[in-house]
């Protein structure tokens, strides 16, 4: 993600069997919004709104953008930084996640990237280097309120763990407010749908023949094919979604292997080390994308008890 170049900020609209797709890039991911309509002008209007808002979220919360509020906070040297209500709400949300995960979800843990690079190699950092960074981790040390945040020296925050999921949910809110048509939002694998589609998108043949949206009113889910597990085995699973969201934590292609031990890229902020014995990826379904993302991340951090955690919490999930 670090070598992300600034994408040309444009979008294009392309015809799909079951509607129109808005395609653009944001947050280092390909983004797609599929709307169940053939109204090109209306889709263009909505595309403009969604792209502007998504890029605004990216600019505001990316730690790679030196002008973002996150960069401002990270370079504040223990001085209070004024924050706006949206930033406050995201901090409050991160705080709630920190609390309900017993400290496993911690937006100050991103600093561990200084020693960990998950490129499939065997470069495991020295214990002393990890321990040195642990002193700079701990959300409980951060002072903040509705109007400002004071981050101690040598600490960093990173909203990368929730930013994309948040942008998906914001896009869904926008779509619900702007169009009656069902829509599917997919920002790099973080997915949500606004409401159930009028058509069954599966039998595409039939869809082509029925251009008038109102003809079939029975409830149908969106069919989403997601790639689970190793890319090599190319295991495509179809998930049916009528409402709500799914998010995936873990990346089968980001890991380290040393002495036969596989290290996934999810780091425990308390030890500074990857969680051992856990699944390589967790996909979760939830009412909102950010909820799904957090549940998936916390499950990953639970290591080998990930499945037990999700089952016990009655969270719909797919583990690989």
């Amino acid at each position, binding site marked *: 993600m670090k070598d992300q170049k600034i994408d040309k900020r444009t979008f294009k609209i392309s015809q799909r069997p079951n509607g129109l797709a808005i395609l653009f890039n944001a947050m280092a991911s390909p983004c797609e919004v599929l709307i169940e309509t053939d109204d090109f002008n209306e889709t263009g209007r909505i595309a403009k709104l969604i792209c502007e808002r998504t890029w605004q979220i990216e600019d505001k919360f990316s730690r790679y953008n030196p002008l973002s509020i996150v960069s401002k906070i990270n370079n504040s040297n223990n001085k209070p930084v004024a924050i706006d209500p949206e930033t406050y709400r995201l901090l*409050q949300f991160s705080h*709630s996640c920190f609390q*309900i995960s017993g400290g496993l979800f911690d937006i100050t843990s991103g600093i561990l990237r200084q020693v960990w690079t998950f490129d499939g190699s065997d470069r495991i950092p020295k214990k002393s280097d990890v321990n040195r960074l642990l002193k700079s981790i701990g959300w409980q040390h951060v002072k903040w309120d*509705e*109007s400002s945040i004071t981050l101690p020296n040598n600490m960093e925050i990173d909203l990368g763990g929730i930013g994309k999921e948040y942008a998906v949910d914001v896009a869904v809110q926008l779509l619900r407010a702007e169009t009656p048509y069902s829509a599917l939002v997919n920002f790099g694998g973080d997915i949500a749908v606004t409401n159930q589609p009028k058509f069954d998108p599966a039998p595409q043949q039939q869809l082509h023949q029925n251009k008038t949206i109102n003809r079939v009113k029975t409830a149908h889910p969106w069919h989403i094919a997601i790639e689970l597990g190793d890319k090599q085995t190319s295991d495509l699973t179809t998930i049916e979604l009528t409402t709500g969201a799914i998010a995936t934590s873990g990346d089968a292609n980001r890991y380290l292997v040393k002495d036969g031990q596989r290290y996934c890229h999810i780091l425990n902020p308390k030890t500074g080390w990857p969680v051992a014995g856990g699944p390589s990826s967790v996909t979760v379904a939830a009412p909102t994308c950010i909820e799904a993302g957090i549940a998936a991340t916390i499950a990953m951090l639970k290591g080998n008890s990930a499945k037990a955690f999700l089952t016990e*919490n009655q969270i719909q999930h797919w583990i690989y």
Partner: protein
Amino acid sequence: MNKSLSFSAALSAAVSALFVAPVTSVKAEESNAWKLDSAVMYYGETDRVQAVEVIVGGKKEFEDGHFLDLKFTFDTLTGASATGAVAQPNIQSFTRPSGNGRYTVSANETPLDDTFKDTRVQLNAQWTQPLKGEYTLSTGAHLSKEYDYLSLGINAGLAREFNQKNTTVSAGLSLGQDTITPEGGLPIPLYEMPHYINSPNGQPNNTEGSSSDFDASRDRSSDSKQIVDLLFGVTQVINRRFITQFNYSYSNVDGYQTDPFKVVSVVDENGVTLNNIYESRPDKRQKNSVYAQGKYHLSKSVVDVSYRYFWDDWGIKSNSIDAKYWMPMGKGYLEPHIRYYQQDEADFYQPFVTRQPEVDSNVSADYRIGKLTGLTLGLSYGFPLNNGHEISFRAELYRQKVTDPGVNNIGVINQLDIFPDVDAVIFQTNYSF
């Protein structure tokens, strides 16, 4: 199972909070300018006291978290208020508290002193600033002056936040001194109200008594009381939608607490007033109250419910329940309000007495420390103006029912309504800029 549900519930609550628009608007970021609030309030009791109050308040933030609050209040009070004397089936005549003249009260009417007229000016200043750690300090002073009354006070409070600002514990202390200097001096408690009045030219103008009667009923020109208040409070944020507050307050008042304008009727076995004596209250009073408040944000509206229990060593106990429901309406908001108040009377409250009380005993017929209930129904409507200012209106109806504390009405008093209801209306306009 409980644990599992709490994880999902906590996460979904966090998500709801994330997508709820903040209650505080972006306007809060414009600091460093004086924020002014003004209000005009009218309070009117049917046939009795009427008050008009003008308040101008200003708040300024100097540096981060350092606030100065100033408030100026001006009010005028006119009309009649109950003297404590009991109604009679015949016309009654009373000496004005100043000794300058007399007023008469029609048969069957509750005696009201119609000379009630006062103007009050009040100034409040409060300074608040953060201290090291999670502490906030607040100090202030007030001064209030009426024609015959002076009230001075200072206060200090300390608050500490815990638990990521979800819990605030506070303690406060205030000290006050009130001095009363009524025209005509302070009447001697339990003394008979004299029949004598002064004439405009200073000469005795009456055949029933002499100027020495009036002078004999007065023993000094002024007196004062000292007030010490302690307050302990906890504010707890349960979640982003639900805030609770709990307070305990203690107040110790030492000094002159009698109302020099109030009397008690001494009646014979037929209920006929023999004379009226000046009331007498203890010079020590310890007050306590506990208060609980819950404020809950629904998706668009806010429910605010509070309860207070009060008790003191005069024997007064009261319960009050207050509920408000804030809801958006158009560009502005609407807020219905209901309040119920119930009070048990002070030990020495008696609507009338049948014999002269013993020396140094206490007695008062002031209905305000009697057995009563009060119901307030109100409605507020406010909206922002195009220039960013805000205007709001409030209208309230108040009905107070004074009830018989259990005395045996005798003779002529039986036929009279000696506990009339008091009805009042309140109108208020606020303008913030």
